[in-house]
């Protein structure tokens, strides 16, 4: 975990924001036991606020809503950045594909403004939602569900 690279542009942006007096919080679904390695990695790239108080690993639930609220209790949150819709709002927690799409429409005015979303075609809830968040399925079962979910022309 301590060897992860940064998303292109992330380092420059975070440093720029910090230079303007913005405080950065890192909310991740990595485990508590991975906290030290994660901080080490943030420090490696000299990212701002790379310390215990600004890193929120997963606790009781994978939903980030409580952690967002905890930060917002003492700070004015001006922007959220992430590669998964559940990074932005509880409206995307464990929702199916159709609900996710509908809620993107509900929050359409936020993207590119308060919400900055990054592309991630490799994994995320966009994929998990296709399997109803059933992580115990075999690859072959997921394969069938994914193919069945697609429109055919």
């Amino acid at each position, binding site marked *: *975990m301590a*060897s*992860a*690279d940064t*998303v*292109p*542009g*992330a380092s*420059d*942006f*975070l440093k*720029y*924001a*910090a*230079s*303007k*007096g*913005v*405080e*950065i*919080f*890192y*909310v*991740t679904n*990595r485990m508590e036991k991975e906290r030290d390695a*994660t901080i080490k990695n943030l420090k490696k790239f000299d990212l701002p606020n790379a310390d215990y108080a600004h890193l929120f690993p997963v606790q009781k639930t994978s939903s*980030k809503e409580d952690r*967002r609220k905890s*930060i*917002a209790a*003492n*700070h*004015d*949150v*001006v*922007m*959220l*950045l*992430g*590669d*998964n819709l559940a*990074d932005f709002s509880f409206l995307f927690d464990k929702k199916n594909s159709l609900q996710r799409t509908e809620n993107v429409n509900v929050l359409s005015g936020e993207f*590119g*403004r*308060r919400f*900055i*979303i*990054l*592309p*991630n*075609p*490799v*994994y995320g809830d966009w994929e998990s939602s296709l399997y109803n968040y059933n992580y115990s399925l*075999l*690859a*072959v079962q*997921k*394969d069938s569900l*994914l*193919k069945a979910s697609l429109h055919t022309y």
Partner: protein
Amino acid sequence: MKNLSLFAILFFCSCTIAPRITVTNAGNGGMPNVIVDGKIFATAYQQKAAEYRALCLQAFNIARERIDEIILRILQSQKRSSLTLMKLFWITALTRLIRSYRGKIMINHRGLNGQQWQVLILYQGHRIS
């Protein structure tokens, strides 16, 4: 008033390590598995497509513009509330002291409200960083 009301950004850690892929079509009747092989394809996009890099940079360029807008909006808002430049300088001079004393008590003592504290931080960003 919120404690040390710095503007905050929530940045969600994205692990960009390529997934460990050791299986291709085993257990699928010899047919390619979209899930497993698809990860290879998607990882290739992340690692090799300049378009992926451009998309990320596009997102952060927008984010940077938003930050600038927010700062401008706050500063203009303060102008409207007749906060004078002199007062800003005074605030800036106090900034380091305030930091040392954790801010809140000292700010309250000086009668500054939360909005002014935000300007203080942003102004400090312009001046010192």
